[in-house]
């Protein structure tokens, strides 16, 4: 249980002269046990925010606070899942999870580590794939292992950078439900910062959604997602409230694109 706070964050890339502003004065506070999604077109600085919170990068201005403590470097209090590069290819699924437990939990007894790892493999339904190397698994299975690894680390917060972005839509549905189930089945919910570009994914999973827009990266709007939990994908998608929220999100997201789209349409008409 922890809060994440971004305070006056600005991030500049590149050498003097060709500077590119990736983030411009971003402020955001994620409450304890809250599931917050960052959504926006590519290049809006979503992943940069994950890098800053995980401590992989240091902001040019401002600071990241976890439980009011400033973040200066990566640490085991934050569990991270990336799109497809979280696992170490030279370790089996089982070894990957053991490795994470060993280095973040301070568990020294080998058998305790292995028992825990086995448990987490089981909860993502991959007890049989423990001896497989990541290269031999499908993208969906790899992400399940990554999520098992993140849960096994028992961090204060979860950071997820488009974790299902490389999966096909069926696998993605399966993974969203798995994540939702694992996250909500515990008594205390972990604080989650989740990056996606999929509006439905954000609506299904989040308590709040922060919409970002690019160049420079800013947070345009933060939207509450009021649906009660546990949420059911089927019934949720049919409600009028869901549809109106979705169309609102899409219009915020793509208002810059609308002009472009209209132009393109005119071009098509001209051709026809």
């Amino acid at each position: 249980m922890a809060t994440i706070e971004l305070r006056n964050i600005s991030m500049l890339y590149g050498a003097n002269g060709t500077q590119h502003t990736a983030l411009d004065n971003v402020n955001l506070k994620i409450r304890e046990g809250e599931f917050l999604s960052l959504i926006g077109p590519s290049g809006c600085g979503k992943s940069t925010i994950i890098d800053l919170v995980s401590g992989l990068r240091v902001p040019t201005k401002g600071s990241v606070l976890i439980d009011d403590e400033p973040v200066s470097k990566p640490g085991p209090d934050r569990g991270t899942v990336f799109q497809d590069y979280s696992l170490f290819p030279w370790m089996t699924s089982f070894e990957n999870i053991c490795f994470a437990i060993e280095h973040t939990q301070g568990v020294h007894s080998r058998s305790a580590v292995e028992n825990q790892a086995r448990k987490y493999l089981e909860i993502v339904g991959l007890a049989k794939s423990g001896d497989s190397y990541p290269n031999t698994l499908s993208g969906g299975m790899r992400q399940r292992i990554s999520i098992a690894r993140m849960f096994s680390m028992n961090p204060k917060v979860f950071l997820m950078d488009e974790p299902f972005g490389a999966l096909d839509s069926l696998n993605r549905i399966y993974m969203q439900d798995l994540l939702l189930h694992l996250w909500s089945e515990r008594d205390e919910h972990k604080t989650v910062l989740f990056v996606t570009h999929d509006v439905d994914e954000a609506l299904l999973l989040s308590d709040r959604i922060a919409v970002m827009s690019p160049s420079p990266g800013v947070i345009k709007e933060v939207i509450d997602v009021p649906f009660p939990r546990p949420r059911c994908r089927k019934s949720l998608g049919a409600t009028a409230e869901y549809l109106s929220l979705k169309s609102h999100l899409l219009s915020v997201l793509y208002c810059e694109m609308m002009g472009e789209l209209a132009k393109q349409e005119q071009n098509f008409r001209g051709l026809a």
Partner: protein
Amino acid sequence: MTKEIPRIAILVYILLAATLVLDVLIPAGPKQAVHDTSIFFGVLLLLAILFTAELFVHRKNVRATTDLFLVIVTILFFWELLFGKMSLIDPLLFPGPARVFAVFGTDWPLMLYGMMGSLGIMATGYFLALTAAISLGLYIGWRRRLYDVAYPIAKAVSPIPPTVYLPYAIVLLPSFATASVFLIFIGSFWPILVGTIYGVFSVDHRIINSARTLGLSDAQMIRRILLPGAMPSIFSGAMIALIMSFISITVAEMIAATSGLGWYIEYNHQFANYDKVIAGMILISLVVIAVMYIFDQVQKHYLRWQNV
């Protein structure tokens, strides 16, 4: 994979039999007299047994095996026919296979002793180089500033043939063995170092980031992430180093040793014992094949996570 036995397989047996018949029935040419042809017969028999085992027991990629054996027995047959029986080149300079293989029967203690000596020196230098170059390379690859200095130097020094150091090594070091170990160490060190540094650099940045989020210490990072991540490139460096070592030890022995395989060839060359020179060459190639096979198996084990 072809499981079916190709028709030309019979040709292998025919050629083996023909070589045997040739050797038994046709009297040896002048200066080709061999006291003991049993080893040559043994080699022919061994080839037949190996081939049969590959065809009917092992049965893995039968066509490739057949083609390979066909090339070997064809060479053996024409060697026996053209040089053993017809003496196309002066048999003193290029004797037939029966004479060459007979050498193994008489000289095997000397050859075995020389082989052990050569391999011992090689292994010492090579493993010293492996240890030093990998640990140094990992650290250099990890520390940007060290890398900027070390990589250009390594690139400039690594193409210098190690045998160039031989005159100095012999003068400065107390014995031939230490000089050779040094030579092999130097020859192996650079390729492995360059391979390791390059390997550390080619570890995907996203994987390093993933490791950093676990909060690893520098030592853990190097041992558990950079070392296995750099392993594919370390192995290609180690392969070049191994080939260099073979060349270095053979050349060094030819120049300065009093035992070993390179010495054996050079020594017999001085006495115009060309049957022994060729036998030595065959032995060296067999040793190289065996060592390379072991290397491949080790590599397969360590890189088993790659495209399985």
